[in-house]
Each structure stands twice: as C-alpha cells, then as structure tokens.
C-alpha cells in the first residue's frame, strides 16, 4: 500500500514521513523533508499526526498479569518435571531391555546350530546340561548382565513410584490402603514367578521378557495411581475407579 501523506501533497508517503519521525533518513533526506514540510501544511499535519500517534501508542497501559499466572506456570512446570523422570526411567530400561532382547535373539540364532549338532551327536544328554552349557558362554554372561541391569532400572522406577504413592496413600482410608496393598501383592507375585522363570531358563529371552512385562504392568499401575491421586478411577484404566 502506498498511502500518500496528505489529501493534496504527493511528495512523501506516510511511510517515508514515519521513517523521518524515527530519524531513519539520511541527513540529506531528512533536511529535504524538513525543508519541504516547512512550506507544506499537509505534510506538517501528517508529521504531527504520526508523532502524536507514536506518543499515544507508547503511553498505552502495560496490563498487569493476573495473580494466578505464576501459580499456573509453577504448577505446570512441576507436573512436567514430576513425570519427566518417570518417562526417562521407563524408556531407559525399555531401551536396555530391547538391547538385551536383541542380544538374546542373536545368541539363540548363533548357538542354535551348535546346540542342534550336540543334540544330534548326543541325544541322550540330559536337558539340564542344555540349560547349563550356554551359561559358560561370555556372550551369554554379557546378555545376562544387560538383563540384570534392565531389571534393576525397573526396580528403581518402582521404588520411586512407591515413594510417591506413599504420600498419596496418607490421604486414603484404611480400606483403600488395604485394597492397594492386595493389588500390589498380586503384581509382586507375578513378578516373583516371572523372575523365577527367567532364572531357570538362562539364555531364553522369553523368561526375561515376561519379567519385564510384569515390571511394566506394575509401573503402569503405580503411575496411574500416583497420577490420579484422590480422583476416582481404576488405576491403569482411564476413567476407571479407585480400589
């Protein structure tokens, strides 16, 4: 848009005069505008308009933020940080678990022909030797260490969630605390069975996967319970009900 400065004068655009108001023209250009405006009522009026406009715009009130703004920001930051570690804690063991799972798959793929050959050569060999033999493999030791590391990370996440939940539980009735303890007890039983299965079948990633699934189930349950706090809701199920 090329708006002329005044009704009659077409020498300078309003934009050019605005630039003059801000001192953006070169000294020669500024002098030319000054000389022109001294004899041009239109441009003088436009300059006066612009200056008055700028002055009034600059004098506009600075609105005061509502007192609720900082508590809202602080609360939002706290919520984000509260669950950020959980996110990290969940992903880290999952990543380690995935790595360990990949190692296990490679191990099984590589060792399977050897194992089959041994079976073919010694069909009468007891199964316990099959289970025990791969343990001596350094790669299997490494994979087991990765599994143990992932399990420890899950345990740490569960401990943190339990600590958070303990604060929430203080507000619950004895019946609610009892029901929570029962459900956690059942989850612990599943974890214990899975751990035993994993212990009995070293080199078999299925056992560890079952253990990790049990850990994840408990973490999801605890996270939902912590997140929902005093709200009604069955933990782990959106829109559910508290025990």
């Amino acid at each position, binding site marked *: 848009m090329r708006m002329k400065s005044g009704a009659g004068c077409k020498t300078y655009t309003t934009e050019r005069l605005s630039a*003059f108001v801000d001192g953006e023209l070169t000294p020669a250009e500024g002098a030319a505008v000054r000389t022109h405006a*001294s004899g041009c009522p239109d441009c*003088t009026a436009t300059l006066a308009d612009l200056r008055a406009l700028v002055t009034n715009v*600059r004098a506009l009130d600075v609105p005061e933020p509502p007192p609720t*703004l900082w508590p809202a920001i602080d609360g939002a930051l706290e919520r984000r940080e509260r669950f950020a570690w959980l996110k990290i804690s969940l992903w880290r063991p999952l990543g380690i678990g995935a790595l360990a799972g990949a190692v296990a798959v490679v191990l099984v793929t590589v060792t399977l022909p050897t194992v089959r050959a041994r079976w073919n050569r010694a069909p009468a060999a007891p199964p316990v030797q099959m289970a025990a033999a791969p343990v001596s493999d350094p790669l299997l030791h490494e994979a087991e260490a990765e599994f143990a590391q992932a399990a420890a990370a899950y345990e740490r996440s569960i401990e943190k969630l339990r600590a958070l939940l303990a604060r929430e539980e203080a507000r619950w009735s004895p019946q609610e605390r009892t029901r929570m303890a029962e459900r956690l007890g059942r989850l612990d039983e599943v974890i214990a069975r899975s751990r035993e299965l994993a212990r009995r079948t070293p080199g078999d990633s299925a056992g560890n996967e079952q253990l990790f699934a049990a850990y994840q189930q408990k973490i999801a349950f605890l996270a939902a319970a912590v997140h929902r706090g005093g709200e009604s809701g069955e933990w782990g199920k959106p829109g559910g009900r508290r025990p």
Partner: protein
Amino acid sequence: MDNASARMPVKPPTTPMLGATAQLSAVDGLQLGPRAAAAEAQVHAPADNDAALIAAVRRGDAGSREALYHRFKRRVYALAVRIVGPNDAEEVSQEAFIRIFRGLEKFRGDAALATWIYRLAVNAALSHRSRRGTGPQPEADDDVDAQVGAEPVRGDAVLRVRIERALARLPVGYRTVIVLHDIEGLEHEDIAQILGCHVGTSKSQLHKARGRLREMLAADGITAAALENG
C-alpha cells in the same frame, strides 16, 4: 520478587503531544532520539543480572524461576494481550514461560535474554493464534461507548481504548511490529531477531502499520487534534 520488577527497565517518559496546528516548530522536534537510547538500555543493560539469573535458574536455586518470571512477566503478558487479546493472554503467557524455562538450558546468550524471551513469547502467541484461527478480541464497542458516556471519565482513557481497539484490528504482522517497537521500545535489530526477518522488513512493516493505524483512527474520527486534546 518486587525487587526484580523494580529493576525492570521502564519505557521512557512520554512528552507532551504536539498537534497538527503546531507548524514548523513541531517538525524540528519530531525525531525520537531519546527513545533509541532508552530502548537500548531496556534490552541490553541488565545483561549481568540476566547472566546471574540464568545461572541461578540452571542451578535450580530456590526462587530463581519466580524471580525471572517477575522480571519479564509484564512484557510477556502485555505482548500476549496485544497479539491474542485479553481472553487468551494468560494461557499464552503460561505457554511462553514454560517454553522459556524449558529452553533456558539451551540458551547460549547469542541474543540478549529479553530478546530471546520476546521471541519465545511472540512464537507462543502466533502459534496460539494460528491454532485458534482468531485475532485478538478488541474491546467491545459497548465497553468503549460506556466509557465515553460514563462520568467522570478522562478523555485520554477513552482515547487509549480506541487506540487499543484500532491496534487489535491491524493485521497481526503490523500489530506485532508496532507493539514491539512503539510500545515495548525495541530496536529494529532486536525485532528482526525476534521475528526472523530483515531489519528493513521490520522498518517497512512498522511504517506501514502506523499509516494503517492513522487511517483507522481517522475513520474513527480521531485526528492529531483529538490525540493532542486526549
């Protein structure tokens, strides 16, 4: 936290307005030299304090986040009010400050802290606006008319409302530049950094914005004489 607010640079004091009747004597006084110096001070002077505050926030010092909030709350909120309107300003300010605190770890100090914060605030406001597909909500005509009819009401209060209303009707690009330059007192170099444009573009947008605003106010019956008498 009021101490932090007290240290916040303020806009330079306004000078009495000159009307259209002021002829050549007004022309010589039109250039706004002092404003540039004041804006420079506003953006760059608290660099040492900013560095200390950033370090405190990064260390997680108690109260440091709140101190940073109080230092910049008026600027962020005022910007939000004028870009998205008063109804959504709180939500946008909250989003802007969350972006600020999350991004502070990565802030390298290439720009002044205030400039960087303005950039995040403008981005939050423009993102919000594009999501909602709405501009700011100008004061309703009834509100203005009520103020006009109310007694006692100072004329400049009504004028301010009318200017705010005209500002709200400006295209968002024009409005953002005029808010950053004429209201917040930033230099075009800073505005160019904030908006990711050339300095010349910022200047051009500003002068066009003023021209459009002048037209709107004139259509609303507000001329320099009215501004002077306001």
